[in-house]
């Protein structure tokens, strides 16, 4: 086809020849972005593995000090949000504008709940002196092991913090999508942004699916 710039639309940007090509590119782009995320969190998982292997007892005690119920509830909340997200994507595939908006808003709310619970947990940690730093102290751990316990909490905050940051970004994306949908940007033929945002949201969910057992569950029985 001729290279003369055709009229650029959202569904077909200048550099692409066909809409299918553009969709393939966006989807592949998102998946590649997600594997960079795997590697990014991978560094944290590695640090966790190393230190848990080095100080299993202390990690057991520290892990048991987390609020199991809150963690489990938050997992459920996040799974619910994934469910509503997938329904939003489905609505987009079918071109049901109002359903998209409804499910996106639900997802957004659930994401908000998750962040709220997380903030509440962090606040608790703050009051209990479980924040890494000079005032750090964890009951049930010998004085010379406090450093190791602090390592657990350093990882806890780094991992949940980064996860929460991803959630915040996700919330931003959802908000953007809601406004765009209201403007009628997405149709059954062009819903790539919703689709791709869905991938992102589910990915963040998967990260939590691993953080939950690693931080809250493993070794709890050893307490």
């Amino acid at each position, binding site marked *: 086809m001729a290279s003369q710039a055709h009229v650029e639309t959202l569904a077909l940007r200048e550099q692409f020849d066909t809409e299918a090509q553009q*969709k393939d590119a966006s*989807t*592949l782009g998102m*998946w*590649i972005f*997600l*594997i960079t995320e*795997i*590697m990014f969190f*991978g*560094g944290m*998982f*590695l640090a966790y*593995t*190393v230190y848990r*292997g*080095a100080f299993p007892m202390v990690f057991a005690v520290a892990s048991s000090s987390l609020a*199991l119920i809150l963690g*489990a509830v938050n*997992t*459920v909340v996040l*799974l*619910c949000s*994934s*469910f509503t*997200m*997938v*329904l939003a994507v*489905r609505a987009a*595939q*079918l071109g049901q504008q109002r359903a998209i908006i409804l499910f996106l808003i639900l997802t957004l709310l659930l994401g908000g709940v998750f962040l709220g619970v997380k903030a509440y947990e962090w606040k608790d940690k703050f009051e209990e002196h479980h924040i890494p730093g000079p005032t750090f102290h964890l009951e049930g751990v010998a004085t010379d092991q406090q450093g190791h316990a602090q390592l657990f909490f350093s990882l806890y905050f780094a991992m949940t913090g980064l996860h929460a940051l991803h959630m915040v970004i996700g919330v931003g994306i959802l908000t953007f999508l809601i406004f765009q949908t209201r403007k009628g940007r997405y149709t*059954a*033929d*062009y*819903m790539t942004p919703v*689709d791709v945002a*869905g*991938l992102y949201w*589910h*990915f963040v*969910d*998967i990260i939590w*699916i*691993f953080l*939950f*057992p*690693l931080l*809250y*569950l*493993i*070794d*709890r*029985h*050893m307490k």
Partner: protein
Amino acid sequence: MSAHIDSVKTYALVFAGLIFLTVATTYVATVDLGPFSVVVALGIAVCKMLLVALFFMHIRHSTKLTKLVVLGGLLWLGILLTLTMSDILTRGALGVPGR
């Protein structure tokens, strides 16, 4: 456009499965299975990941390329963990400090 539109029922079933696994893993954590606690907890997490990835992220309808990308990502994470742990776990194996 999208070739595959899954039914709400499929999604609901997957969702129910995910909730069930969450409850199960939380419960099992309080039971002492010795070293198997870790295995069970991570096993369940992997199952949940598969459910989300295959159904919610539509990997089961995806192109080979997408599947390859995902497997590649996991493989690379595996490389990072395995080769680093190959050092950490064999430290001092010669019975000489630092060797």
